[in-house]
């Protein structure tokens, strides 16, 4: 099947045979996955695949609820990239009611994040507040990174030293996207905070170096002195960050 991939849509009989294998729950999973891979590869040639697309999408929907978790996840992933309403509906249902979940929550959130117009912000907020695991919380925050109204949430997470490094870095990245000025303010405060973790200070320094107002920062004696002190810091990330900062402002 892998060999026939490029030509799979050129011959209607071949294509229908491939779809039949994919849908057939009695076929071994590796065989069905190979059929799926062949069809997926063929779908890259959008123009040649035009006549086959409808049957392909219908087949993906039918296997999205398959008994095999890998087949389910692959099918939902392919559909989510098409902003498919059926897939979004199933993924949201699974997040709202874990007994209906077709994929793990972190995967569902990741797939929903492909479409900003999906109705996924409320459920993502719910997961941030009550996460089933760390990965799910991280994915929920990544998803909310496109939600401009989530600025207060990200500011809170960023400044919370009890949060994990990964979660706080996601918050910094999201703030840069939706409220860059707010991130600069927090970056300064975190750099001046002697109790702040090195990783977060390194992230703050990168934000300041890459996106800060150099002229304004240069006039900030307190901040310049603090960044200067990082040249002798134990953390290699901070040392590297300080070097990059001074190189950027030619000092």
């Amino acid at each position, binding site marked *: 099947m892998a060999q026939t991939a490029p030509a799979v849509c050129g011959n209607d009989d071949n294509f229908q045979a491939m779809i039949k294998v994919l849908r057939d729950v009695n076929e071994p999973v590796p065989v069905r996955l190979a059929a799926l891979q062949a069809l997926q590869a063929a779908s890259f040639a959008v123009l040649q695949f035009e006549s086959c697309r409808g049957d392909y999408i219908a087949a993906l929907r*039918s296997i999205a609820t398959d008994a095999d978790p890998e087949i389910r996840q692959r099918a939902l992933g392919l559909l989510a990239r098409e902003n498919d309403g059926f897939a979004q*509906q199933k993924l949201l249902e699974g997040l709202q009611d874990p007994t209906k979940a077709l994929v793990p929550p972190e995967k569902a959130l990741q797939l929903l994040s492909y*479409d900003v*117009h999906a109705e996924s*912000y409320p459920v993502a907020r719910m997961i941030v507040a009550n996460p089933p695991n760390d990965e799910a919380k991280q994915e929920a925050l990544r998803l909310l990174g496109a939600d401009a109204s989530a600025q207060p949430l990200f500011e809170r997470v960023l400044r919370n030293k009890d949060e994990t490094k990964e979660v706080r870095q996601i918050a910094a990245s999201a703030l840069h996207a939706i409220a860059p000025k707010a991130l600069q303010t927090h970056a300064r405060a975190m750099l001046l905070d002697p109790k702040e973790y090195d990783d977060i200070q390194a992230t703050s320094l990168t934000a300041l170096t890459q996106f800060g107002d150099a002229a304004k920062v240069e006039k900030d004696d307190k901040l310049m002195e603090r960044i200067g002190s990082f040249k002798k810091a134990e953390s290699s990330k901070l040392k590297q960050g300080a070097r990059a900062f001074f190189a950027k402002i030619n000092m």
Partner: protein
Amino acid sequence: MPHFPVTNGLSEAEFAAWIDKLGVEAAGRAELLALLREDHSVYDQRGATAVVRMRGWILLALARHSLTDEALLFVLEELDTGRDPYLVAASALALRSYPAPAAAFAPFVMRALNNIRYHDEPVNFNAYGEYATAATEVTPVRELLATLRWLGPTARAVLPELEALRANRASFSRKVLVEFDRTIMAMTQGSAPDVGLRDACCSLPNFFGNALSWGRESRRGCEPVESILFEDQDGGSVTFSEFFCRQPCIVVFFYTRCDNPQKCSLTIAKLARIQGLLAERGLSDQIRTAAITYDPSFDGADRIRGYGANRGVRFGGGHRMLRPTGGIDALRAHFKLGVNFVESLVNRHRIEVYLLDAAGAIARSYERIHWDEQEIVAQAGALLREDDLPVTSRTRATPTRRAASSRGLPIAGTLASLGFAFFPKCPFCWAAYLSVFGIAGLEQIPYLPWLKPLFVVLMLLNVFSVWVRSRTTRRATALVVVLAGALAIALSRIVPDLAQLGAWLGVGLTLTGSFLSAMQGARPAASFFLPRAAAPARE
């Protein structure tokens, strides 16, 4: 028929049940039509795919009866710009329920065919919210072909385009190719319409109108939004009144996260083309252009600048891309924007462009169907010429040169009334006046009898000017007071016993009325002598 509280609190299942009820009764069509407006509360806080399911179900319900002219606009809009297979298929089906085929529909169907061919997939019309999980006979391409068959010979103008599409055999399955052949046959058989095909294909029926226009006297003022502050693409700040109440302006709405290339992206590219046309005609300094984002919390200055620049927009003092920093709800209400949101993000919007006059009032709008750049520029040019006409009616006072001059008229008229009230009746009176003025050294003023009719004319002019301004401000008090003043002055000249009292009373009333007229601002709503903002004319 009982009215159902259709709001965003409704579950999709409840919504579908209500639509089914409305669909079976002809009386329900008006409500179905109202539900197709994007700003309807039922779409508030729904995801984009939920909105698709809901609108599709409404279109299918409308198709159960004969499609009305009012509903036609929504159907053609979907064919013109739609990208969702379900909605396009439902629209194609709905169009076939229109009482008679019209050649003007063919280009819309053809455009939809070209738009949707790479997104063709099976759809399920059997039950609300169902998705096809097996190959079915219902796909948007097949529905569109069925609609072309329904149009038959009336669609012959698009036959070459359809045949060219059919020639690309690899693009369609065998079953679809068979349908292409059937369609081509249906279009070639039978007699063609009497009218010239080319003309018929390119003009919409008379009843159809995506353009609305308001006469000068019926335009709504922009008081509710004039203080809204915008940030432009360079981070500069400007209020609505500062930008829009100076010169005629062409305004479009967009947002950078719109995923339909037929909508926001194309709208901004067309705005750039409009700017080019304005420059060619030397109108860039007289007609402004603005693009306002629906999504101000995400669309920062950098984003809107990049979005515009990538589509050829030219920036300048009178040509800006704007994000409201507040008052988005007031802006939505003022323009009656066809948009709704899930959280801060747009879930559905229509295409809309507005032409504002120099006072910032909406003079014309185009909605849903793609607009023609040449026509927009021509209509904006007409607004410019309108601005040169005498101001007989304005919906609101604006800080423009013309508005300021209308305030000056009552002052001149008041002086005339004073002149008429105290004009000496005869040469003896004149002598008496001169004896008094003589103390002040004005004894050289001669008696001029022709001044009397001049003062009468000027006094009447004052009454007229106050009337004009009262229509502008929608306030009648000043007019009533000035009229009473004029009456008192006239009586003082006719009835000798009232000469003193009438003159002083008349002058007092005239002064008060004129002062009121010059100082009063515009009233937001219409008053007793002005009709409320009239319904726009659909063209």
